[in-house]
């Protein structure tokens, strides 16, 4: 119901901007020691922000500002392949991971102590440090002396697939390792989202005959859609900068065919000894990254991330 003219609620709403304006004016009106103390408290934060955010970002942009770096980057035949790999990694890795996490979060909503115990085990991959995890994947998938292919030889006298030695299998292995590592985190996020959906909605839907898949399609999914979208955006942004998974699982191999932009940047900067070209590789992801950040910020600022 709308507030009637002259009611206390409307009066408070009218006064709010005025109060905010008053505070702003007060802040601008600081004088003498008050202003000095305000600046003194602000200065360390400003210095840290400059030293650890503005300066590194500015230095990076400056390193990658030469057109020659971009000419060299675009002339490198690996670059085009890397862009494709990055898009595949994002499209398959992020979406498959989040979709599976959404489904699994439904499973973990089930009652029973064993489900809770399973959830505890399920989140372990996310809890353990990332680098040893990916190195373990690398060793397990080694074609000659890895755990999987050794077992195949021991039990069946057959050579297993060259997991990391052909581009498609290697990229697939990277994506599987990535999903295994990060799916538990997003499952817990979606689980929290599901738990905040009121039970009454499901009961009402059940009265109307919506159970199982129909309940998921008409109740759960619409209510989770905003959360799912924001999680997809956030995960895409994080994954775009993911260096560890590719570096430690496939190493960008075989024959430099599974690099993504994050690992190519490091290769160009440090293996080729060309920091400008390395920064150019990273900066070339900005046309994708910046719109994602803008969309995410708009969604968050509109307060749409709610059930």
């Amino acid at each position: 119901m709308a507030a009637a003219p002259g009611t206390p609620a409307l009066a408070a709403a009218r006064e709010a901007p005025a109060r905010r304006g008053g505070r702003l004016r007060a802040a601008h009106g600081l004088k003498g020691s008050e202003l000095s103390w305000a600046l003194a408290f602000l200065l360390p934060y400003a210095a840290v922000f400059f030293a650890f955010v503005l300066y590194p970002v500015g230095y990076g942009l400056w390193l990658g500002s030469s057109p020659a770096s971009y000419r060299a980057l675009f002339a490198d035949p690996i670059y085009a392949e890397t862009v494709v790999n990055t898009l595949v990694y994002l499209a398959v890795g992020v979406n498959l991971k989040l979709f599976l996490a959404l489904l699994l979060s439904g499973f973990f909503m089930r009652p029973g102590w064993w489900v809770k115990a399973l959830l505890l085990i399920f989140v372990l991959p996310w809890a353990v440090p990332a680098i040893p995890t990916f190195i373990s994947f690398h060793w397990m998938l080694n074609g000659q002396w890895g755990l999987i292919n050794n077992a195949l030889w021991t039990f069946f006298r057959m050579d297993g697939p060259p997991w990391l030695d052909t581009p498609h299998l290697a990229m697939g292995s990277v994506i599987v390792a990535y999903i295994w590592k990060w799916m538990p985190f997003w499952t817990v996020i979606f689980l929290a989202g599901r738990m905040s959906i009121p039970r009454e909605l499901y009961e009402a839907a059940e009265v109307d005959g919506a159970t199982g898949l129909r309940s998921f399609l008409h109740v759960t999914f619409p209510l989770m859609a905003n959360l799912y979208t924001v999680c997809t955006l956030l995960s895409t942004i994080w994954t775009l900068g993911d260096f560890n998974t590719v570096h430690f699982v496939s190493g960008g191999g075989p024959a430099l065919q599974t690099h993504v932009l994050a690992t190519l940047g490091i290769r160009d900067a440090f293996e080729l000894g060309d920091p400008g070209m390395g920064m150019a590789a990273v900066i070339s992801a900005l046309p994708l990254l910046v719109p994602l950040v803008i969309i995410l910020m708009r969604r968050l600022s509109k307060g749409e991330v709610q059930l």
Partner: protein
Amino acid sequence: MKSLSWRPFVVAACLVGTALLSTPANAAGQTVTVWWNQGFYPAEDQAMKDVIAAWEKQTGNKVDLTFYNGSDLPAKIVSAITTGEVPDLCYVDNGDFLLLGQNAWNDKIVDVSDVVDTQKSQYSQTAVTAARLYDNVTKKRSFFGVPLKQQALHYFVWRPMIEAAGYKVEDIPKTWEAYFDFFEGVQKKLRAKGQRVYGLGYSLATKDSDSTYLFNQFLVAYGGAGLVTPDGKLHADDPKVREAAIRALTKLTTPFKEGFVPPGAINWGDPDNNSAFYAKQIVMTPNATLSIPVAQMEKTDQYMHEIVTQSGPLGPDGKPTTSLVSVKLAFIPKGAKNVDGAKDFLKYLIQPKVIDAYLVAARGRWLPVMPSLAKEDPFWTDPKDPHRAVATHQELDGPTMPWFQAFNPAYADVNAEQVWGKAEANVMTGGMTPEKAVDQALAQIKTDFAKYPVPAE
């Protein structure tokens, strides 16, 4: 109006100043900061620590020594040179392959002629040539690295595996084609007995330096030594060079496609052929330095009897193969705060007795760059040692040549870009013919050389 108080600013300045200046300070001129490649085993690191301790005791100076993993150190050095926050002295095993030539070209390295001159007469010609790099700013060739040690490609064989296949080590042929074919035969026999092994442990990857070393050594063996001449000129259009490259590429990739090389070799880093060899999954592997046997020195049976070191077969032309020798160089980046201290330490380190003691304490994995050491110290030619004498004879008595990047830094770019590794992959997994892969590689090499127009001396 209330006057502005300065006290808060003083407090803030102190806080910020404390944060910014809380890093430990070095005593200027007294401490030499050294970044050194971590050894393959603890004895290598201890050998360097001992040298440093002796120099510190003699001079009263201090060395701030940090060991870095060999895969990480080039990146660390590139960052340091880019930002200007450099150590006083650097040594990285792959420095000559990846970064020294380009940085000398760009005038980022200190001229160390005065250091090298103290022992110049002791050095082999290969070492002297490898250390003289071109500075494109000063337009002169000079010593930008101090030769410490060297490596060449040797061939390591498991004696028990040869014997399990019904052969003796003496049965291994001495001629080029027959030598490598022999190990394919060994694999067939061992596989027939149910063993999951491969005859040839070739590194065929696009990372680190082993695969680069192997391809270029084969290129030289097939007559491609003229790809880059000592005047720094590229001869990519020389039909002899192209033919040698095609034959080298064919010889290395055909066994891979036929299943005589582990499929994972397409992804091997430098330690991986060592690991595969220790796991007895490969019968023979080519490897630069004596790291494979030396790391097993405590296992007397393996070191003395089971691992066999060979200098390889005669070349395809029936003559002894010229060994590509990689000379390992220490260098001082420009911007170093204590150049004099670093030079003083290097002068101490390259004294024949000191460098010999260092290399001996490191168990002889690397060979000396001073031929006199091999003659005067029986350690290097001890006939009771089954590995060192072979390597010493190959590297210091046999025909050798420095790597191409010593003639022109463009070849370090070629190495870093893994141009030949990519050519191998194009043939092995991309379905390309060796001819096309070589032509593509040579085109890339021409592009790289166009960036480094070294004038003739």
